């Protein structure tokens, strides 16, 4: 056990691409935690998926030894979807390096993460990265940071995570400016789970921060929220490979192999204590169930492999405690699941894992938020537009809203304000960080963000504005369900809940989009958008008149036969809605909101 005065627990918070992973690599090198030949770029980003997307999904902790200190570097997820996980990681630290790209300046995630870190009471060590870049403007960015932190710009360190310049000084500053943890080895054990992962061989592995008491290997332990008891099979630290140690003392950070088979039994935010009479009476505060914010129906692309999808979700759930799903039946898409996600990125990650790791082909309905429907005192929660009752049968509907932070070059401020306004935003405040950069806060309906807000923001500001947001409760809104009918048959997968003012435009857009996607049939097909029984938009796909091969002579016969066979296979892939044959691709394309909603954001 290391004496608490020799321990520093810290994390790095930064906007995406400002150099967090690169800095982590330098720190590993500097403290010789990884032999140079083992050094692989961005050591801490573990999963392949993360490596490709350049994000860190799962937090992890590494113990570094330096100058007789035990430094625990706790990696935090960088995306809004995982705000709750970020907050748990921050709760395991006493300090944070606030890393800002000296060429980019402060961005929305810098601010959001800074506020979270400050609210968690962490000591902030500000640092500018990428000072080697010719475009870097460290003086200006240091000034902005000084204003943000209310400190002298000279306290802002300057480094290059790429060349290593300034990194030893930064490490020194962490030791000097970050307070050591408290904690008393004689008190009952209280250890915070700030991350958990599922290992196919060893079961659930949790990452913990001991606040009080001692967590010995092989002890009988209890999860205070889930009340699950188990044996601590192994305690250890990542340095950065897993290294077993006999116990974790107060202030220390490490991993714990629980022997449990399901991440739901050891949840992020829960407190671990000893089983029996030596256990703590109270858990550490702040545990919360992860709550899905975004919903979407997932269906097997070519019917039939519904049970494969179910098995895959069951497996995925073992390692993803935030994933929700329940069976759903769609007339148009068949059997599938309505899934709940923390956000759009989480949704994309799950879809991608299902397709990649489980080799499934999926159709996903457009993401939607949950709605609360109030009838007198009674409130029903709906996560599927198809379940939204008809107008007049309820008193009001509430939708979730978020507190959004947008940082933008001043030149685009007008465009940003227009966008937020047009998406039913309520401005909270607005300020200039410098003459060139402004920061605005809005309360926005989440449904607008889920729709295409992020893409619009990027395209209207040429990619220069950044966005971050956090849940902010519910508001009453005038929402209606828009249905889409093909040849008189409603297609449940295309139903959507939108604000009344936009219902007409939305209906028009869907109908026009479908007009280009529904292939011509042997009869005229009416495409209609309706609200209740009122038709708000209508288009017709005219019957096709010509589908014949002009010529067919000696050499063509084989080729033409093959074309027919191909056309036949194409027909087999069509789904029937009433009398209308709809290709798979039409569903996918019609349901695609806007690609980059999460991808651009990362």
């Amino acid at each position, binding site marked *: 056990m290391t004496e608490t005065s020799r321990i520093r627990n810290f994390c790095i918070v930064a906007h995406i691409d400002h150099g967090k992973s690169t800095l982590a690599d330098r720190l590993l090198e500097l403290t010789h935690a990884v032999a140079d030949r083992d050094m692989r770029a961005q050591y801490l980003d573990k999963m392949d998926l993360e490596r490709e997307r350049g994000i860190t999904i799962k937090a992890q902790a590494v113990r570094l030894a330096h100058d007789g200190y035990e430094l625990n570097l706790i990696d935090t997820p960088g995306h809004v979807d995982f705000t709750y996980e970020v907050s748990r990681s921050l709760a395991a630290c006493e300090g944070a390096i606030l890393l800002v790209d000296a060429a980019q300046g402060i961005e929305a995630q810098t601010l959001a993460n800074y506020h979270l870190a400050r609210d968690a009471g962490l000591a902030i060590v500000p640092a500018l990265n990428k000072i080697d870049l010719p475009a870097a403007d460290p003086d200006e960015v240091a000034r902005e940071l000084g204003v943000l932190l209310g400190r002298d710009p000279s306290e802002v360190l300057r480094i290059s995570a790429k060349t290593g310049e300034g990194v030893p000084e930064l490490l020194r500053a962490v030791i000097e400016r970050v307070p050591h943890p408290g904690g008393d080895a004689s008190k009952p054990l209280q250890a915070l789970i700030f991350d958990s992962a599922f290992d196919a061989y060893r079961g659930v592995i949790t990452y913990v921060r001991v606040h009080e008491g001692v967590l010995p290997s092989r002890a009988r332990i209890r999860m205070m929220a889930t009340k699950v008891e188990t044996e601590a099979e192994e305690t250890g630290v990542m340095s950065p490979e897993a290294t077993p140690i006999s116990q974790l003392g107060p202030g220390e950070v490490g991993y714990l192999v629980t022997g449990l088979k399901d991440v739901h039994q050891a949840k992020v935010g829960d407190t671990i204590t000893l089983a029996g009479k030596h256990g703590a009476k109270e858990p550490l505060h702040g545990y919360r169930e992860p709550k899905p914010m975004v919903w979407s129906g997932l269906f097997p692309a070519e019917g039939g492999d519904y049970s494969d999808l179910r098995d895959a979700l069951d497996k995925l759930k073992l390692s993803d405690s935030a994933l929700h799903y329940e069976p759903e039946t769609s007339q148009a898409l068949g059997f599938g699941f309505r899934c709940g996600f923390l956000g759009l990125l989480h949704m994309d990650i799950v879809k991608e894992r299902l397709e990649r790791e489980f080799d499934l082909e999926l159709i996903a309905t457009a993401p939607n938020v949950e709605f609360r429907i109030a009838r007198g005192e009674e409130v029903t929660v709906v996560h599927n537009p198809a379940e939204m009752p008809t107008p007049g049968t309820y008193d009001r509907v509430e939708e979730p809203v978020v507190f959004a932070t947008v940082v933008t070059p001043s030149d685009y401020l007008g465009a940003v304000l227009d966008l937020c306004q047009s998406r039913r935003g309520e401005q909270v405040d607005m300020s200039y960080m410098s003459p060139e950069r402004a920061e605005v806060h809005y309360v926005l309906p989440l449904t607008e963000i889920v729709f295409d807000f992020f893409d619009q923001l990027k395209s209207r500001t040429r990619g220069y504005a950044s966005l971050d947001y956090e849940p902010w409760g519910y508001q009453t809104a005038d929402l209606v369900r828009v249905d889409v009918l093909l040849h008189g048959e409603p297609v449940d997968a295309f139903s959507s809940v939108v604000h009344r003012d936009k219902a007409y435009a939305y209906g028009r857009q869907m109908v026009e989009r479908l007009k280009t996607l529904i292939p011509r049939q*042997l009869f005229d097909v009416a495409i209609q958008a309706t609200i209740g029984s009122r038709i708000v938009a209508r288009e017709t796909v005219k019957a096709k008149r010509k*589908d014949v091969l*002009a*010529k067919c002579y*000696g*050499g063509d*016969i*084989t080729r033409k036969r093959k074309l*027919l066979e191909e056309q036949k296979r194409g027909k087999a892939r069509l789904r029937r809605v009433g009398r209308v044959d709809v290709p798979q691709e039409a569903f996918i394309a019609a349901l695609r909101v806007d690609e980059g909603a999460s991808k651009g954001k990362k």
Partner: protein
Amino acid sequence: MSTGIYVHVPFCPTRCGYCDFNAYAGLDGLKPRYVTALLREVELAAPGWDDQDVVSVFLGGGTPTTLDAADLKALLAHLGDRFAVAPGAEVTVEANPDTVDEAKLAALRDAGYGRLSMGAQSFDRTVLSSLERIHDPDSVHRAFAAARAAGYENVNLDLIYGADGEGLDSWERTLLETVALQPEHVSAYALTIEPATPLGRKVASGAVPAPDPDLQADMFATACAVLCDAGYGHYEVSNWAKPGYECRHNLGYWERRPYLGLGAGAHSYRQDRRWWNVRPPEEYLRRVGSGELPVGGQERLEPADAYLEEVFLRLRILEGIPASWVEPGRAEPFLESGLLELDHDALVPTERGMLLLNELVLALAG
């Protein structure tokens, strides 16, 4: 069994932008060797076909009339030596208007080419240039008159409709000028965009609009009306003829009778086997030069393949398929909607049905 022989001549003066035939401009230097190779291939291929009754010979391309009349004469004579070409067999040569004059046509007729198929394509100058054809409407008139003067009494005119810039009016004028000439046979094809052609690439890039299928459907209806009024019988989706002038050679393809293809890229068919020669003329020359059959590939038709071909070819030639071939209930919707009609127990496509033949084939046989 009655058999057809097809001979492919892959040379053209220039290449038309829409063309995906095995045709080449700028290979004229190969012509003498190509003719020699054709004669040689006749020798190589003839064994096994000697017992077949050859009822038609078709010289296609490319542009066969880019070869000298003497060579074409020698070729036909050689075929006559090696195969049982029936007396009165239909012998067709394809020609493009600018490659023939009266003298040449007379020589061809003399040599035994009794049927002439001419690539007129259109009588509208802008359509011809949009198709990148080198001739103009006057050349068609001139060549047609030359054919009559040379004694041709069985002439086909090929037409294409739906090129960029062609409207319904222009197409109707082309049809009227065509029937005014009174050819014995007319083929009218909807322009089809093949991806691997210069035109295909222009359409893909948006430089040229894709043909409008509805306009092409209207054009088809116009062709049916004008040609029928002028006394032509509609006997295949894209073919019309005065009574008795249906192309026997092409009917052979559609009735699934055997055919032997000679020349670069030519296809052959017999019983359950279809095979094809190598496409590039140089490779063809090399293969034949070394004394081998220049076969480039082949397929064996499974019964299901043969059935599908039988169905779609019968529907194309309006012979229709026996109602008993079709599962009960499948044809009814099309009979009701007027795409099919019942002609003595055979399901035959109507004029509207012909334009939706792919759908019909898949619905009936798929």
